C-alpha cells in the first residue's frame, strides 16, 4: 500500500535560517531518504517552492480561471511530500515519526486510493 506524507509547516519558522542551517537540513533529509531507500519503501518525494510562488487553476465553473497564489491561505501550507510503500498504517506512522518535517511541522498521512477503485 502506498502512503503519501503531506508535509505542512509554517514558513515563518524558517525565516532566520542561515546558509549552514539549510545545508544541514538538506543533509538531514538526505539521510532520511537514504533510510527509506535502504528499507526498500521509498517511492518518491519533492520539496516545493514557497506558496507565494504558487499559481492556482480551475475549470470548475466552465471557464478556465487562473489566479496568483495558493488555493487557500493557511499558516502552515503544504511544503513537500513523500510517497512510501509499506504494508499498513502503523508502519507508515513509524516512518512518518522519523520524517524531519514532523519535528518542525505536521505530517499528514494518507493512504493511496488507487487500489480501492
Amino acid at each position: 500500500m502506498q502512503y503519501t506524507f503531506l508535509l505542512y509547516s509554517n514558513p515563518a519558522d524558517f525565516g532566520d535560517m542561515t546558509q549552514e542551517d539549510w545545508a544541514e537540513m538538506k543533509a538531514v533529509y538526505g539521510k532520511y531518504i537514504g533510510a527509506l531507500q535502504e528499507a526498500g519503501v521509498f517511492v518518491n518525494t519533492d520539496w516545493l517552492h514557497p506558496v507565494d510562488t504558487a499559481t492556482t487553476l480551475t475549470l470548475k465553473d466552465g471557464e478556465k480561471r487562473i489566479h496568483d497564489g495558493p488555493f487557500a491561505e493557511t499558516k502552515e501550507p503544504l511544503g513537500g511530500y513523500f510517497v512510501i510503500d509499506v504494508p499498513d498504517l502503523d508502519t507508515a506512522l513509524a516512518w512518518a515519526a522519523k520524517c524531519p518535517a514532523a519535528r518542525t511541522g505536521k505530517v499528514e498521512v494518507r493512504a493511496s486510493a488507487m487500489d480501492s477503485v
Partner: protein
Amino acid sequence: MSDGIEARITEVMRASYGRLLAILAARQSDIAGAEDALAEAFARAIDHWPRTGVPDNPEAWLLPTARRSLLDTQRKAARIEVRDTLPEEPVMSTNMPEIPDERLKLMFVCAHPAIDPALHTPLMLQTVLGVDADRIGAAFLISPNAMAQRLVRVKRKIKAARIRFSIPDPMDHPNRLNAVLEAIYGAFSLDWLSEGGADDLRQEAAYLADLVGHLCQHDAEALGLQALISFVIAREPARLRDGILVPVPEQDINLWDAGLVERANRLLAKAAQVNRLGRFQLEAAIQSVHADRTVSGQTNWRALSQLYAGLRKLYPTIGAAGGQAAAVGEDAGPTQGLALLDQIDAKDVASFQPSWAVRAHLLARTGQIQQAAAAYDRAIALSTDGPSRRWLEARRSDLAVGLV
C-alpha cells in the same frame, strides 16, 4: 421456528459475533464488509438451523458461510463475473481446527491512536460485542443516526488507511494498551442495570478484561481493570432486592462472591507490585475498601474520601467528583459533601444522574426536604434503568413521609 431454536441462535450470535468478526475483518481491515458477511451468515443460519438443528460447532458452520459471502461481495465489487455457483450450505468438516481468538487484535484496532478516542468504546461495543448503534447511541447520549454515521465513517477509515489487525509490543505502546482498557471499561459500565441482555455484555467485557489481563500480566493497569471488574461482579448477587437497586454500603455481604473478592484483592496486590499507579487500580482500591466491610463490619468513609480525592487528581471525571462528594458527605458531613458537589461545573452535571442522587441524599440529611425532593425528581427523570429509578422513587417517598 420454535422458541428453543430461536433462543439457541440468539445465544450463538452473542457468543460468536466478535470472534467471527475479528477473523473475517483482519485480512483486508474491512470491518463493514465482515459485518455484512456475518449478517448474511446469521440470516442463513436462521433459515437452515430450524430444519437441520443447530450444529455442534456453530462457528465452524458460520465462519465458512460468512467467508463465502465476503468473497462473493468482493468479487462483485471487483466486477469479476462469477460463473461457479456457491453451494447452499458449507461443507462440514468434523476435524475443523480450533478457531483462534483474534478479538484482542480487533480491540487494538478499535482503540488505535489514528481513531478519535471518543469512538473507541462505541466501535468496540459494536464490533467485539455486537451491540447495535441504537443502544450505543443511547448509552453515549447521542442520536442513533449520528452514532451510526460516525461508526460507518471510522470503519471506512480503518479499511482505507489499512490499520493492521495486530497486537503491538506493550513496551513500545503503553498508551495503546491503556486505550484498550478504557474502551473495555466503557463496555463494562454500559447500562449494567438495564433488564435483559446487558448482563451478557458485562460478562463479555469481563472476559475481555481477563483476556487482556492474562496477555499483559506485567501491566499494572490491565491487572487493575481485571481487579475492578472482579469486585463489581462479586457483588452482583446483592445489587438488587425485589427489582430495586441496593447501594453498595447497604448490600448484604453474605451475598457477595467471597472467592471473587479474594481474587480481586489478589489481582490488585499483584498490580501494586508493578509500582505504576493508575486510574483502574485506584477504582479497584475503592471497591476493595467497600469489600473490607466483610471483615470490619463497616464502611471506611475516610479511606474512600482519600481514594476518590486521589482518583480525581489523577483522572478527573464527574463520576469521581460525585463519588468523592458522597464519601466526604458520610465522613465529614453532608454540608462538606454538598460544598464539593457545588464545585463541579453545573453544565457538566446537568444530565448526570449520580450527582443528582448524591445531592438529593445530602440535602435530605441537612433537612432541606423540598430541595432534596426536587433533586430526587431530577435524578429519577435522568434514570435510564428500572432498578435505579425504583430505588430513587423509594427514597423520595421516604422523604415525603419524613423517614429521613
